[in-house]
């Protein structure tokens, strides 16, 4: 009979007999949203140290892009934030269009807004489900969210041929036009969406346990959020009025009317609510785009997609992806391949404050905080 040294689980106490416990959460863990890892030091269940570890999904997308043609990187961008491939396509297209000075036809811009906002809608919906999963709710909200996402993905499949890996945008436009009847179908579907959001709201918002789990957890001040480069809903939850759709006014966003919600406290609950409110604004945007979409070409005919050679120079193009500011920094030497291709991944940079947010919280909060930042590991590790 042998008794294993159980005290070895704990670190030696520092002074007054306090013992801390080091736990490696991840890379295989149910709620790290993939292969993310956090080395956590806990005193009881309180976090005293947290160190994120990245790179388990690293495939050096940037190096691959230097090997491929300009067009050849487009399908790879699908795999960045694989929940919202279309906005990744869009960001890359915007950056290349800046680099080469390409005009985009009007219909293509409308198509981009429609598919982009559908992407935002499904991302935010799934976010509501995922954060409930992180809180230990047994998947009801997640399943409802996936149910609705499924319908949006079906729309994407009809349009682009694939549910997730769409490879849809092209330099100066999009790859294919709507098939017959698609717009009517999408419009009819979006009509039902507010009712679904109402259902989600009555399931979640107001739930006392959810409020207790989210409110007051990990507040971030506006100043800190800006300094740490947070972007997207996480930034706006801290009360910063900064939406790249408004600020840059790329595409046809200046023509459409929508509101940018922002919170006051910047805690997990605000980050949660901002997504819900943004989803409602996306519906408004979609309805306007459905009503206004003109006929015309869907891609700039001047642009040669194969053997595309932008002029020498560099450009930084960015859009407001559902996760935040997704930017591409491209350097061209005039050749068929990029000289340098860099992605500014919102998921990674939004994690900058993770340790600060988690210190002093409980272990269970770490999952909620991570969930409220809304990361996708394909983008964090690239």
């Amino acid at each position: 009979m042998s008794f294993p040294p159980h005290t070895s689980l704990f670190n030696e106490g520092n002074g007054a007999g306090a013992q801390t416990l080091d736990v490696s959460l991840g890379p295989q863990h149910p709620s790290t949203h993939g292969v993310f890892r956090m080395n956590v030091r806990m005193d009881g269940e309180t976090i005293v140290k947290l160190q994120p570890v990245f790179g388990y999904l690293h495939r050096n997308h940037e190096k691959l892009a230097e090997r491929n043609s300009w067009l050849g990187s487009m399908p790879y961008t699908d795999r960045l934030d694989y929940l919202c491939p279309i906005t990744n396509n869009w960001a890359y297209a915007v950056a290349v269009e800046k680099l080469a000075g390409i005009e985009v036809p009007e219909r293509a811009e409308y198509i981009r807004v429609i598919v982009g906002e559908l992407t935002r809608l499904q991302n935010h919906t799934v976010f509501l489900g995922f954060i409930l999963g992180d809180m230990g709710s047994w998947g009801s909200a997640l399943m409802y969210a996936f149910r609705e996402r499924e319908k949006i993905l079906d729309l994407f499949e009809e349009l682009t041929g694939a549910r997730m890996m769409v490879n849809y945008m092209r330099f100066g436009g999009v790859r294919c036009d709507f098939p017959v009847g698609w717009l009517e179908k999408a419009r009819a579907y979006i009509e039902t969406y507010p009712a679904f959001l109402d259902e989600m709201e009555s399931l979640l918002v107001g739930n006392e346990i959810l409020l207790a789990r989210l409110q007051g957890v990990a507040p971030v001040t506006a100043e800190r959020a800006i300094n740490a480069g947070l972007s997207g809903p996480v930034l706006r939850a801290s009360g910063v009025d900064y939406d790249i759709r408004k600020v840059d006014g790329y595409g046809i966003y200046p023509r459409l009317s929508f509101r940018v919600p922002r919170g006051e406290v910047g805690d997990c609950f605000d980050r949660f609510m901002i997504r819900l409110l943004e989803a409602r604004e996306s519906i408004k945007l979609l309805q306007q785009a459905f009503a206004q979409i003109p006929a015309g070409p869907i891609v700039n005919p001047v642009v040669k997609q194969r053997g595309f050679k932008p002029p020498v120079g560099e450009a930084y193009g960015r859009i407001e992806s559902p996760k935040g500011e997704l930017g591409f920094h491209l350097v061209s030497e005039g050749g068929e391949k990029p000289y340098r291709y860099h992605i500014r991944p919102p998921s990674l940079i939004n994690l900058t404050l993770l340790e600060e947010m988690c210190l002093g919280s409980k272990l269970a909060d770490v999952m909620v905080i991570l969930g409220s930042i809304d990361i996708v590991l394909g983008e964090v590790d690239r």
Partner: protein
Amino acid sequence: MNFPGSGLIKGMWVTLVNGVGSFFDPQRSKRLITEQYPEERPKLAEASRSFPFLIFDNDPEAGIRCTSCKICEKECPPQCIFIEQDKDANGKLFRRPKVFNIDISVCMSCQICVEVCPFESIRMDNIYEMSSYDRFGSLVVTKAQLLKSNEYYHGIHPTEAATTDARIEAARIKKAAAAKVTAEKAAAAKAAAAAKAAEEKAVSEKAEPPQPEQTA
């Protein structure tokens, strides 16, 4: 009504409505959308794509559209296409592939090969049951497996196939017209040259003795 616990009761109501509602959703369009896969097959959208295949017209050997230009091999982002050009024993190259392999475990279904192909010969299939225990054998699809008829293409992507055929037809007509024009031009030129030659001959015959005739 807002008392402590009312939010929980509201949430319970939502789950109950969904639970009961899933029994009263005969079209399974609103709540219970799961497809019972092996028994029910999803109706694929027309644009739906999985992996590439090669089109032939009428005959898999003679009608193969691919000319082994290797543009797709060069453009393929994950570099999963492998082509060898056909040649005879003397090293004379034919405009058709001898080997055309696609490693579909590497292929990412991006359909860039389809877009760059100038001969409309590679297109996206929509089959999806391709799982296998054999990593290297069955996931490397060879030319024989890739070749599928144009009718098959019409079957899976009717709209796209129709436009493709129209484009090929237009190109053929244009080519034929161009050929006709060139032929006519050549004929006219020949006639003119012949006339000129005859004239010159007549002139030269007067001046000089006849020389050995050159080809026109």
